[in-house]
């Protein structure tokens, strides 16, 4: 098999996991580049063969695809690679950044490359679960995502910002604004995470999901938070975030018509968010960016993607999903 050359920019909590996943895949050679303060040398040493550290990631390296795992925004970097004719996988979880990444659609089509937008934990795995759950419905009219936990420091900062910023939810064909930290709902996540209060927040999931499900009437995304999180979200972060957050979880509710009745399907997942995001980005690079079968921007819940095969690949890499089997509200 011909060696694939996949670049990774950023070697933090997510980037190092992407590198580990790709380096463990036969026929893949990984090129790592840091952003300031990164740890590519240590990551490459810990992984070993099939990883090369480069000073800067650029088009002359002959890349088949590049994964962007830097802090947000990533759109400028993504545009540079698209212009050079390289497919891109972005793990950005910033709403405005995701919105601008969609703006690369025409350019990506013109250059014949794929830009996978939101290939992380949420958005990313959340969108795959939504599509998988939706596949058993005749029609879907509601999608609701709940997220618990954070990955690395950049993700923790994003969580902090999201709680104090205005959320956008999709309702009956229009975007509605909701104050960050409002709209408390109790979200039940797979064990051992259990129940956590979740709130509106500035999350990109509704934008990504609407791309994949343009006919759905209601889409929302909530973030779990403690009262202290909500209180301190209005203040600057008072201490440095942890190197990596603890166990996180996802809950994705899909409502619609099935067997002539209005029903709900709830899927969930549990993992360290950075570990899951690393696996999702790696599989997205191998399944979407390298084959380059859908030039333009692609969301992971896109109907053209073989979601079952994607999730099966993730399960083999240790990222498993679960289905809620109890009563729904």
């Amino acid at each position, binding site marked *: 098999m011909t060696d694939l050359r996949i670049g990774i920019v950023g070697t933090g909590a997510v980037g190092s996991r992407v590198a580990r996943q790709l380096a463990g895949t036969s026929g893949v050679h990984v090129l790592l580049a840091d952003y300031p303060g990164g740890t590519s040398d240590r990551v490459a040493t810990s992984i070993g063969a099939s990883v090369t550290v480069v000073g800067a990631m650029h088009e002359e390296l002959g890349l088949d695809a590049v994964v962007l795992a830097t802090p947000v925004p990533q759109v400028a970097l993504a545009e540079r690679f698209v212009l050079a004719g390289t497919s891109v996988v972005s793990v950005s979880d910033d709403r405005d950044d995701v919105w601008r990444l969609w703006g690369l659609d025409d350019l990506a089509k013109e250059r014949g490359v794929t830009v996978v937008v939101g290939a992380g934990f949420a958005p990313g795995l959340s969108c795959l679960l939504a599509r*998988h759950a939706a596949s058993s419905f005749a029609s879907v009219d509601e999608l609701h995502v709940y997220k618990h936990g954070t990955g690395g420091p950049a993700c923790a900062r994003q969580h902090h910002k999201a709680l104090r910023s205005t959320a956008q939810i999709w309702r009956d064909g229009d975007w509605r604004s909701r104050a960050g930290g409002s709209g408390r709902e109790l979200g*039940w996540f797979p064990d051992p995470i*259990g*129940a956590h209060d979740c709130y509106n927040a500035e999350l990109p999931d509704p934008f990504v999901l609407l791309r994949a499900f343009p006919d759905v009437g209601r889409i929302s995304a909530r973030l779990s938070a403690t*009262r202290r999180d909500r209180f301190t979200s209005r203040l600057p972060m008072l201490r440095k975030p942890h190197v990596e957050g603890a166990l996180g979880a996802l809950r994705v509710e899909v409502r619609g018509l099935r067997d002539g009745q209005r029903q709900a399907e709830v899927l969930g997942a549990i993992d360290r968010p950075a570990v899951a995001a690393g696996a999702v980005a790696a599989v997205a690079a191998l399944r979407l960016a390298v084959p380059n079968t859908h030039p333009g921007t692609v969301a992971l819940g896109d109907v053209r993607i073989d979601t079952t095969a994607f999730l099966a690949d993730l399960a083999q890499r240790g990222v498993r999903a679960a289905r*809620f*089997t109890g009563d729904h509200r």
Partner: protein
Amino acid sequence: MRRLGLAFLVAGLVAAVLRVRGKGGAPAQQGGWEELSFDQKP
């Protein structure tokens, strides 16, 4: 009057701390989770 104000201030601070630190209760979940097999549709 000053003592009354101070008492209200202290009570407010205590309530705020409890409110911020409190965890609240959650009702029991009706049902459980089962791992998905991707050989089949849900």
